[in-house]
């Protein structure tokens, strides 16, 4: 109940092809995240699946049935929008009931489902408020509640957390993950925040300019990025990538090493540099090292604390087994 297949789907706005021919299968029950830089076509792809935009060519099948020309309401999908898109003039209860009202679900049944959703989402006390009287997190939950009651084949989320502040984001992230565990319904989740992608996804789809760069589980992407784009995009802080002589030494055009895979010493190491900004988080320290002769700045992450001050000299040594190598096209050399 929720397998979605895209077959040679393309989308153009006027003359501009935003999505070049694209194939993708999302399995039933999977939590799939579309991730990619701004403007890469994530939202467009999601809206094509939802039916909010016509596809220019190709086919979309939901549960094996062709849905290319099925209007959005009939696809059995529910969408949670970035701005939540709650109906401001309706109470929370009415908001949640709306899709059922449209579908002609009997009153009793509506009531039952609203109650169930409200309980699941901790909204019971707020059912009679208007969206305007709710906090960001609560609004988010109402939007999800509205989606849940339709018992959709799949949920579509378009950057649902981007309007929340950092602390709340962490909480909501967990809530959505738990919801997925509980419902086991297909979810497609769009974000440009790779932390969200990593922590939530069963499967991540990395997009660039409408093209799929890599599809895989978060750890696959972390450990085996298919190319420099994915390597740079997944992981926080970003992987350090170097060209030139240092790369050639390892028989590659570009090499990459993640900040957490660099060892630091005050006395010796592979590369020498000077500490720029050191960010002390207590649990970790991020050191931004300049003047290594490699690239402008190398970022290093150290667990715990280290006494590194602006301007100090420092030595860095990459853990060679964690080194990523890429060829001239930017593809990983395995």
């Amino acid at each position: 109940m929720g397998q979605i297949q895209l077959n040679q789907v393309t989308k153009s706005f006027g003359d501009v092809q935003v999505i070049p021919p694209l194939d993708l299968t999302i399995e039933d029950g999977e939590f799939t995240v579309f991730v990619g830089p701004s403007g890469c076509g994530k939202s467009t792809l999601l809206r094509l699946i939802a039916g909010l935009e016509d596809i220019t060519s190709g086919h979309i099948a939901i549960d094996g049935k062709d849905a290319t020309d099925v209007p959005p309401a009939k696809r059995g999908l529910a969408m949670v929008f970035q701005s939540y898109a709650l109906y401001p003039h309706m109470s929370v209860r009415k908001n949640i009931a709306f899709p059922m009202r449209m579908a002609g679900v009997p009153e009793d049944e509506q009531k039952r489902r609203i109650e169930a959703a409200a309980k699941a989402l901790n909204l019971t006390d707020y059912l009679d408020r208007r969206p305007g009287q709710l906090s960001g997190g609560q609004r988010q939950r109402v939007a999800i509640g509205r989606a849940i009651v339709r018992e959709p084949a799949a949920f579509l989320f378009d950057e649902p957390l981007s309007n929340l502040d950092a602390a709340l984001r962490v909480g909501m992230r967990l809530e959505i993950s738990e919801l997925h565990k509980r419902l086991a319904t297909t979810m497609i989740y769009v974000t440009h925040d790779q932390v969200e992608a990593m922590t939530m996804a069963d499967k991540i789809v990395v997009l660039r300019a409408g093209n799929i760069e890599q599809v895989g589980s978060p750890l696959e992407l972390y450990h085996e990025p298919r190319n420099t784009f994915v390597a740079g995009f997944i992981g926080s802080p970003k992987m350090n990538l170097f060209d030139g002589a240092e790369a050639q030494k390892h028989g590659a055009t570009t090499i990459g090493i993640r900040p957490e895979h660099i060892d630091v010493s005050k006395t010796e190491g592979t590369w020498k540099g000077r500490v720029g900004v050191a960010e002390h988080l207590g649990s970790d320290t991020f050191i931004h090292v300049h003047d290594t002769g490699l690239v402008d700045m190398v970022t290093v992450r150290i667990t715990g604390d280290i006494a590194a001050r602006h301007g100090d000299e420092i030595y860095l040594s990459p853990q060679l087994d964690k080194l990523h190598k890429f060829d001239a096209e930017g593809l990983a050399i395995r």
Partner: protein
Amino acid sequence: MARSATTKRKVINTTAAWIVGLLIFFPILWTILTSFKTEAQAIADPPIFLNFDWTLENYGVVMERSNYMRFLWNSIIIAGGSTILGIIIAVPAAWSMAFVPSKRTKDILLWMLSTKMLPAVGVLYPIYLLFIKLGLLDTRLGLTIVLMLINLPIIVWMLYTYFKEIPGEILEAARMDGASLREEVFYILTPMAIPGIASTLLLNVILAWNEAFWTLNLTAAKAAPLTAFIASYSSPEGLFYAKLSAASTMAIAPILILGWFSQKQLVSGLTFGAVK
């Protein structure tokens, strides 16, 4: 700027604003006061401000002379009817412009406005002939249609600017939730745009209420609104300031009261997209 405005500053502001406000309001105030004077007191030199013998005589004379209630009723029907009709036609059009914009949307909008620039006097004959043909002369229906057409561009424009403020995502959410186009407009868009629709409604009631060319020229007895009522008072014989004031007060009172009661809506919504 949230530094506590000093009391002195506030006093100055208040004084200035009240002076200006009263100055602007004064002609209306004076008209209302004059309507309660006798004709002799109305032209007394020096003018009498408050200490005159308040009398309702002028209102009596005016009521006796013309069937005020009928004019009033016609005004209400015509102004209200044309506005409601206009909104019914404009809502779908504004929906289209705001949510399915095309390259021509702005051109269409500006073209609509340009139809308002047809000089009314220039087309009186054609319209009059048309009205005779269609049997619409001196009917409330005819006037309602004409006023609706005159104000339609303004209504469309205002609604368009309000609709543009409504995030398209909400309508898409409704669509995802299974609402048909009709349900989308009816259950979601319209209720959300209520403040905008209310001020559009008000502005257009005011414009229709005060429209004085077509209402005068396309009516005789049956459909004549208050603009025709006032046309019979513009220069009667002899001293007439008090009676004129009474008639004027009667002509503007309903809309003035309506306007005051609903000024919040009017003020909050009257932006024409000027607020960005």
